[in-house]
């Protein structure tokens, strides 16, 4: 028999746990209530695939921003994923303990830098460099991709490193004993064996990239138009909300919530995929 006191503590903890869950539920319900009417009015197809965003004239098409979000996220992946994976391989397999103990907290520190600082750094260094050496306005998909590519490093590195370290030691021993070099062992045994963890790491990193707002507002240029090259400015779903929420009202405000719904759905799909992949093994 559990004592009364024990039962009570149990209940209290349950209540606290439930309250965090209810915050999530509340936010979700709130966004959907606020955003659904305008989607219903405009029509989901016209809302998602509409090319024109002009709230004052009643045009609510967010397709250019979906393209913006997707292109910046893919760009971030191209910049960040190879670096992150090399970095985790180095940390998990090659780095001597001393070096690892310096690297690991340093990488975690990257996650602690506020995103506005990343944006600031982007505006001061990345944007002018692009303008000078590659042309265009500098404020561009490329600038956003570089900043986001760096911002997603800690997420991808830590999860990839953990999944490499979680592999049984005897995989590696077995491969080395067969006369493989360390690099061959990593490439043909360890990376494939840790595949699900690595894919999940990348997806979570991309979720972080697609949801990032502050840093990208500062470096993307925020033009609502389909980009023609990586040097063109774009607006993402998040920046659209961040820029206009301050003064929007009525239908316009609803449309921003609806933008939030689309973002919410994309991130949910990404996270669910990551969970599904990690659970599968």
């Amino acid at each position, binding site marked *: 028999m559990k004592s009364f006191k024990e039962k009570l503590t149990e209940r209290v903890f349950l209540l606290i746990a439930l309250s965090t869950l209810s915050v999530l539920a509340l936010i979700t319900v709130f966004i959907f209530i606020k955003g659904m009417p305008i989607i219903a009015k405009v029509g989901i197809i016209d809302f998602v695939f509409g090319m024109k965003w002009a709230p004052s004239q009643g045009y609510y098409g967010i397709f250019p921003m979906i393209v913006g979000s997707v292109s910046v996220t893919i760009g971030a992946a191209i910049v960040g994923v190879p670096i992150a994976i090399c970095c985790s391989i180095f940390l998990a397999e090659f780095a001597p303990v001393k070096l690892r103990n310096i690297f690991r907290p340093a990488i975690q520190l990257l996650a602690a830098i506020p995103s506005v600082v990343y944006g600031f750094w982007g505006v001061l260094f990345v944007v002018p460099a692009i303008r000078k050496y590659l042309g265009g306005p500098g404020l561009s998909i490329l600038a956003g991709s570089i900043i986001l590519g760096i911002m997603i490093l800690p997420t991808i590195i830590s999860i990839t490193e953990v999944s490499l370290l979680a592999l049984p030691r005897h995989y590696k*021993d077995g*491969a080395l004993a067969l*006369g*493989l070099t360390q690099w061959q062992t990593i490439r043909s045994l360890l990376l494939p064996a840790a595949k699900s963890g690595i894919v999940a790491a990348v997806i979570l990193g991309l979720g972080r990239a697609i949801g990032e707002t502050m840093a990208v507002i500062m470096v993307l240029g925020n033009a609502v138009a389909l980009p023609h090259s990586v040097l063109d400015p774009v607006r993402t779903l998040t920046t659209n909300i961040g820029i206009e929420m301050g003064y929007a009202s009525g239908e316009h405000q609803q449309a921003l919530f609806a933008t939030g719904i689309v973002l919410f759905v994309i991130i949910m799909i990404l996270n669910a995929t990551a969970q599904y992949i990690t659970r599968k093994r």
Partner: protein
Amino acid sequence: MDDLILKSGQRAKIKTDSVNLFYGSFQALKNVTMDIQECAITAIIGPSGCGKSSLLRLFNRMNDPIPGVRVEGKILLDDTSIYDKSMDVVALKKRVGMVFQKPNPFPMSVYDNMVFGPRHHGIKQKARLDEIVESYLSQVALWDELKDKLKGSAFDLSPGQQQRLCIARALAVEPEVLLMDESCSALDPESTMQVEGLMEELAKKYTILIVTHSMEQAARVSHMTAFMMMDEDRAGTLVEYAPTEQIFANPKDKRTEDYITGRFG
């Protein structure tokens, strides 16, 4: 140990001369000198922690990645010094294969496990790889059991089958020496008998070194037996090394006798 008489017509495949092994400041092996016969089974026995695995792992340099490890003395494989600076460690591991205590199939199909080594050593033709799979699975008496399950995961095999697969996988890179560190300890009696039968078969072509905690196993399968013990500094030393019948019938050293009659550790 110098007066050791090798089986007629057989030569020493591996020679060690005054080998010391250190893990940092801890000496794990002290002054180990022994000749290991070609195409025979040599068993290493002794109480836990006396350095049996450490000794075995010296022969394919599996100790190398351990931080602070240091080797003194000479170890010769066919008269080339394996701790020489010019030694190609990867090539050495090809010549000296290893089977571990726990079966360690890789997370892939039986077929891919088998061709894992050969593929990395440059064999690409499908026909040749198929041939390797059949030939080495047959050597470990798995071919008939597995020929229809080659594409299935190696994890779906029984532990005994997995261990024999690991032996076959090690053989597929065509080593000259096979090191087996307590390779039957995770197996049921029947699989153990199978693997032992296999060792005897393999000893016709390969030089085999086994570490075992089972006195019966050493007596059953090995030609030579080495008995090791820790000295007062906890460093492993070779106490007695002789033909297996002699070790078990009339050991020269009192400590060997105590150990094999079970009066020790």
